[in-house]
């Protein structure tokens, strides 16, 4: 089984996925720089992806907790999911997801003025 991951820069990766693995784990363990900073506990929003239009209805709908955590993501729409909450099944073979920019790890160090 495979999933296709589109990166913020447009590059795509076709990754072999095992049944029962979280999509976040598939992406992370293939060495793709996904932030996923809480490690899959549905406690951050740094594994935000947009799933392909035709896949939205095929996924187990997001839990209330996932919807709450998505409040901490950006550019959220009906295709938005936290991919630590998507478990690979044979029905999801061919799944397409696009990684949201804020979920990319290894962002260069930056300075920000917190102010106020």
């Amino acid at each position, binding site marked *: 089984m495979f999933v296709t991951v589109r990166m913020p820069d447009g590059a795509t990766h076709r990754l072999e996925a095992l049944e029962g693995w979280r999509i976040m784990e598939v992406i992370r363990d293939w060495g793709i720089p996904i*932030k996923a*900073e*809480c*490690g899959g*506990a549905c*406690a*951050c*929003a*740094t594994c935000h992806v947009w799933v392909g239009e035709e896949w939205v209805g095929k996924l187990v709908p997001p839990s209330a907790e996932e*919807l*709450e955590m998505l*409040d*901490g*993501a*950006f*550019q*959220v*729409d009906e295709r938005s999911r936290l991919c630590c909450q998507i478990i690979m099944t044979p029905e999801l073979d061919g799944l397409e997801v696009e990684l949201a*920019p*804020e979920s990319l*790890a*290894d*962002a260069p*160090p*930056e300075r*920000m*003025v*917190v*102010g*106020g």
Partner: protein
Amino acid sequence: MQANEASTDVVVIGAGPVGLFAVFQLGLARLKAHVIDILDKPGGQCAELYPEKPIYDIPGIPGCTGQELTDRLLEQIKPIEPVFHLGEMVTALTRTSDGKWRVDTDAGRVLIAPVIVIAAGGGSFVPKRPPIPGIEAYEGTGVFYAVRKIEAFRGKRVVIAGGGDSALDWTVNLAPIAQKLTLVHRRPEFRAAPDTVNKMRALEAKGLVKFELGQPSDLKGSDGKLDAVVVKRPDGTTFDIATDALVPFFGLTMKLGPIADFGINLHENLIPVDTAKFETSMPGIFAIGDINSYPGKLKLILSGFHEAALMAQAAHRYVHPDKVLRFQYTTSSSELQRLLKVA
């Protein structure tokens, strides 16, 4: 020496579970520690990301939450009497002329110690920055990620974005003094204390708060002066809200931050260490917990605890090169039991 300057045995950077347990192990080696963390509370990820989430793989504790683990560690290290500097970020780490290390924080604090322990996990927690092109140009003038001085917002038009406790708390607190306050959130539900949500709804009913469904998608203005926030509705259409300030509250995320500038060897944003002392490429600077890397590394809290114990042995040699550290067990050593105030 000035009031904000201090000397100690060890400076621990990061007050997560591993930083806290390092204080304990250093304490058993009779080393005094100061602990610095950018968060205003100890616990690191355990306290900030998942205080309510269960942890099942701490040896001897079948199950506890992130906050419970933090509380237990704080109880365990209480007799060691560490000095905490919370809400401060380390901005520089430099060598002193007499071979010690100097730590500077963004609060103007200076700490001098022969040993530094970096237990910084994924780095510093910083506010999430909305991916709006050019937003940096407004930060500090029209875009604020925290409210430090309420008075700065008096009489201003303010847009708060987000749906959590920070967004709701500041909506309620700033509405009475702002000229106009608009709360923007992507859905009508909020992840905040119900009491605060009720207060916001009451202010909305009185016309003191305007609630708009959507997400900030662009900014309008010039030379750092913000004129309007463009908001994208759930249906994809957009509209402008004229404003003086945007205060986005989308939570915190981890950035490696100034650690990258310390001159320590890094590999893929992690600090390579040896597995006997967990020392970095710079003598006297150790790295333990999620921030280090070595062959076979597992990012587990228990790995960090193990690393802390071995690090403390090596740290003792730097602080007291003339003394031998007698290895003792807390079960049988009356000296250690006195230290822990149990005997």
